[in-house]
């Protein structure tokens, strides 16, 4: 068995790679949602001043990378690798962002599971001493996703109640080797004796690579239901591999299962023996957190940017403030192709888990 592997699917990052900084940028609709104060930047217009939607998404990702880099206090030349992912064919958004960065680039496709997939691989590279500083990010845009996977934007089609809204969002994190720590946290706290407490450090402790679980579901409007079993499988394997108690984490977040997928995930986890009280206290889904009910997105948000922005914005800042200490976050992806539903294929789901700890 490999030295850094636990159980069947989990890696342990013994050098505890640090998350030095993060940046989240969201679009107009997301900026009107309940988490709006946690994001670093809210676009005034989803075009971001560009002529095509693909350019807008690229610009969002690029801006997020530059801001995260600036916050980390590092120079572009110090970054060893750039790992990005998105939903578009041939990773158009990531590749065209990376061409301006002049950083060694790897594009990873995981559909909406891109963020944790990228964080996982970044952690492997940093923990294994192959890189000292890595930028990992993911983005999605409602307009580019609709254009590619569904109908033209102005088409008068009705979305069923189970449909989810691809989030216009980008999230980026700078991961640094755990061997040498530098703090850049803006959140300094006073302890009981009015002494300045050292700022929280956030590190990545474990990562679990998910397996593809295909439920046979063919309806592309039921993404949440199609991906839920994959998320459940990864969660259960993570706990089995690490041996953690169910209550180990303060928060367990799935990426974009939406309202329906979230309920299915809870039901399946409880059925598998996970205590319901623990789930009620700590489990949530980024897709259900990003929008309000009044915003009428039916089953919730989806897209790489959904989990990327919630993680880089809300979760990261909450951890820096000391409100959350241990998080297990799983970005969930539906690995269908554009033509696979027409060929009668079902939707394969996958979920990769990353566990973060603030100390």
């Amino acid at each position, binding site marked *: 068995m490999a030295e850094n592997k636990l159980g069947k699917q989990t890696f342990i990052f013994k050098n505890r790679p640090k998350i030095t900084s993060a940046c989240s940028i969201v679009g107009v609709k997301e900026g009107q949602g309940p988490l709006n104060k946690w994001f670093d930047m809210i676009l005034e217009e989803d075009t971001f001043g560009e002529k095509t939607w693909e350019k807008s998404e690229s610009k969002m990702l690029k801006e997020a990378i530059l801001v995260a880099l600036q916050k980390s206090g590092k120079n572009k030349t110090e970054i060893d690798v750039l790992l990005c992912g998105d939903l578009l064919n041939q990773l158009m958004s990531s590749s065209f962002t990376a061409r301006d960065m002049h950083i060694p680039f790897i594009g990873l496709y995981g559909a909406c599971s891109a963020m944790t997939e990228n964080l996982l691989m970044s952690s492997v590279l940093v923990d294994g001493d192959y890189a000292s500083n890595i930028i990992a990010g993911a983005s999605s845009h409602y307009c580019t996703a609709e*254009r590619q996977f569904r109908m*033209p934007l*102005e088409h*008068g089609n*009705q979305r069923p109640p189970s449909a989810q809204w691809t989030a216009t969002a980008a999230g980026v994190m700078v991961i640094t080797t755990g061997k040498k720590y530098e703090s850049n946290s803006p959140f300094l706290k006073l302890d009981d004796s009015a002494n300045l407490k050292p700022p929280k450090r956030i590190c990545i402790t474990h990562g679990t690579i998910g397996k593809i679980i295909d439920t*046979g579901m063919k309806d592309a409007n039921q993404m949440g239901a199609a991906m839920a079993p994959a998320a459940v499988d990864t969660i259960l394997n993570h706990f089995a591999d690490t041996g953690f108690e169910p209550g180990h984490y303060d928060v367990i977040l799935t990426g974009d299962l939406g309202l*329906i997928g979230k309920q*299915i995930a809870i039901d399946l986890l409880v059925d598998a023996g996970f205590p319901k009280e623990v789930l009620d206290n700590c489990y949530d889904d980024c897709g259900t957190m990003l929008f309000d009910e009044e915003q009428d997105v039916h089953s919730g948000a989806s897209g790489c940017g959904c989990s990327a922005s919630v993680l880089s914005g809300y979760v990261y800042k909450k951890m820096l403030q000391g409100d959350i200490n241990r998080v297990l976050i799983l970005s969930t992806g539906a690995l269908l192709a554009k033509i696979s539903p027409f060929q009668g294929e079902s939707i394969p789901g996958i979920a990769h888990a990353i566990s973060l700890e603030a100390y």
Partner: protein
Amino acid sequence: MAKPKATGQPMKTQQEQKKEVAKAYEKYANQFTPKPNYFLNSLKAFIVGGLICTGALIIQNNFIGGGMSKDDASTFVTIILICTAQLLTGFGLFDTIAKFAGAGVIVPITGFANSMVSPAIEYKKEGIVLGVGSKLFSLAGPVLVCGISIATLIGLIYWLTGLF
């Protein structure tokens, strides 16, 4: 999730088992899926669709009353419906109306107009020839194929029955 029962039947192939699991999971997932309000949606579609057709008829009758021939009047009404749908699509209003009305605006010729204008707007970014030109009929194409094919078939049937 539903577990397979031991009924003493012969071992199913992997394909058959996969299908069973898929069916069982779909049934399970449906428990959590809110059902659309079919009655209310149908009512909205009926009312809006009816209003469009009634409006079109009023305009047609006015044209005929003004001295136009019936054929010309109906052609002009069709043009008016198509142009209205195109303008509304261009202004970004058609999809908002369609969200409410559904089939009520899609079934009349307004839906066809929208299905051509929306890809035209969308794919303008890829150029006039390879973008707009090739994608213009991407949604309307199947409608034309089915319509023309069925019309040809019915024409043949009429012709054959007319021989006897």
